């Protein structure tokens, strides 16, 4: 088992002929992901690498191939349209990798996708991977291995760092999900925690948050109220000065809301194990398994 993606995931790639889209489509295929279609308007009828049919619209792709998941690599100012198009075509999971999507665009996209009954992951996220089955996005496959740890994170490379250390220590992963660092994203910590709690394969969860917003505090309250599986957490940005942006639009500390201290206190109160360093996840998780 796993969450959100598995062997049955059939992927349509939006922006398959672009620089990032083509590179990562090859990587996904190499990993074993079932990439069934690509979309680039005007290139319908062609094929990608002689193997994946390209369509002009997501609707055409879904009708012809039964794709149930879309992954988006289109440029930022076209990404909102791509997300809405995917949900409108009936895809159930929309993964937006694109970085730099205007936040106001997401205020329209999020309710649309939700009303269609689909799940949005991202934007500005590395996607997700169920080791040994499927990867949708850009998480390097070789640092993962199948196992029982559910991983959820707001960051890309920090996720890789932790997953790499888990794998080296023999702790495989059920699914690793990067929810992205933007202020408005489709899937949050609670969505992932609830899915991991319900997944029989997952025995413990590693959660990597960062400064800004209240998603981690909400997650902590959720853990305390409903979760039986152990959770270990980390907050990046403990030394960040107040009021400064640290790259991710989400990492803004304003006033008291969203500081690392506040988030760590919420973790503590919820009984979440606190990793002081990224490398502390291994021992803390081993103790709880």
């Amino acid at each position, binding site marked *: 088992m796993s969450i959100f993606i598995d062997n049955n995931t059939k992927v349509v790639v939006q922006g398959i002929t672009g620089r990032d889209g083509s590179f990562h489509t090859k990587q996904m295929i190499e990993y074993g992901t079932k990439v069934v279609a690509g979309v680039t308007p005007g290139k319908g009828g062609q094929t990608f690498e002689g193997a994946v049919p390209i369509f002009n619209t997501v609707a055409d792709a879904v009708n012809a191939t039964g794709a149930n998941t879309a992954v988006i690599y289109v440029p930022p100012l076209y990404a909102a349209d791509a997300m809405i198009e995917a949900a409108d075509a009936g895809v159930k999971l929309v993964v937006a990798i694109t970085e730099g999507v205007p936040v106001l665009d997401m205020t329209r996209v999020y309710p649309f996708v939700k009303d269609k009954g689909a799940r949005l992951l991202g934007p500005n996220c590395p996607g997700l991977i169920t080791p040994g089955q499927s990867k949708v996005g850009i998480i390097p496959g070789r640092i993962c291995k199948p196992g029982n740890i559910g991983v959820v994170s707001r*960051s890309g490379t920090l996720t890789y760092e932790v997953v790499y250390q888990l794998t080296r220590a023999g702790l495989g992963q059920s699914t690793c999900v990067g929810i992205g660092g933007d202020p*408005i994203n489709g899937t949050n910590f609670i969505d992932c925690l609830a899915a991991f709690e319900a997944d029989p394969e997952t025995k413990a969860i590693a959660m990597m948050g960062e400064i800004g917003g209240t998603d981690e505090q909400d997650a902590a309250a959720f853990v305390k109220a409903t979760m039986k599986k152990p959770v270990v957490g980390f907050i990046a940005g403990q030394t960040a000065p107040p009021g400064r942006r640290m790259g991710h639009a989400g990492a803004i500390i304003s006033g008291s809301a969203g500081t690392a201290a506040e988030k760590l206190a919420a973790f503590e109160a919820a009984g979440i194990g606190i990793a002081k360093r990224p490398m502390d996840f291994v021992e803390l998780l081993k103790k709880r398994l």
Partner: protein
Amino acid sequence: MNIHEYQAKELLRAEGIPIPPGEVATTPTEAEAIAMRYGGTVVVKAQVHAGGRGKAGGVKLAKSPKETRDVAERILALHIKGLPVQRVLVTPAADIASEAYVGVILDRASRKPVFMVSAAGGIDIEEVAATTPEKILKLPVDTRYGLQPYQASRLAFFLYDDQKRVRAAARIMQGLYAAFMKHGCSLAEINPLVVTPAGDVVALDAKMVIDDNELDRHPSIAALRDESAEEPSEVQARNANLTFIKLEGNVGCVVNGAGLAMATMDLVKYYGGDPANFLDIGGSSNPEKVVNALKIITADPSVKAILFNIFGGITRTDDVANGIVTATKQSPLKVPIVIRLTGTNEELAMKILHENGFSASSDMDEAVQKAVALAKGAA
């Protein structure tokens, strides 16, 4: 991106929001001339991207053109939160019967722009929120439908009883929302919105923050950027497509990815060091980015050791290695460098570094400890 008060006021005027006149001066003489034209008492306001201008002495009344000159001279000599004041806004002083706060903020939790209004304006709205939250009305707006007329009047009724003022304030709410959406804001604020003794509702101050991701869509807004009002090293970094924030410590950090960059800074602190900066070289790196990153870091005299922490995913570690070699050939380093890299093309990167006399490790913890020790030894 921050824009100045006078720029934000222009954008709000264009939406029909009543705002008293004002002109910008860069010298005391210009300020004096503006005061002469207005006659009477004026307010001289520092135009700088920092909050708390009033407390820092950046907002002053002046009763005559001569006094305006003196006040402008003092304000133009100020640094507010480290930023030099290069412009002042001169505007006729308004008589005020009451002050309110009106703001629109992109809210993460509701995933919508949220209006916040309070009749307790003119002061720190965060303080009002903390001490008397019942004095604030929050109203989320579904951007698919926009701010509805009933919502605008609900906001206005929260501030005023008088029908004329309510109608005027409702129009201001619509104008503020229109400006917020049109220019891609993450924040648009009028503080204070005042009622004059004559009963007119006017905006005396304006603040707008534009979502950086919107700038490609709005070239006229992007052109409002005032680079002279920003930290020079941060401007240089942005122009090189790097995210950089200068800090106070002495360990210069070069990392890929914002989360890992923050975690690296935290680890530097954990081992008793102090990061000199936040620097994210981003995802798809090329050697040129690394060269620029090193230029910016080495230009900071407080840096005593440089730490690279690269986890190659999309980023190819051999690109980073080539960048380090190129940069140090162009200008040899005066401080020690510690390199940690792992991931995509790691073997190739290690080979490039070793051939050029650098050592590198693949362990983050070890590299951070080493960099902290070196920075301390050199300090």
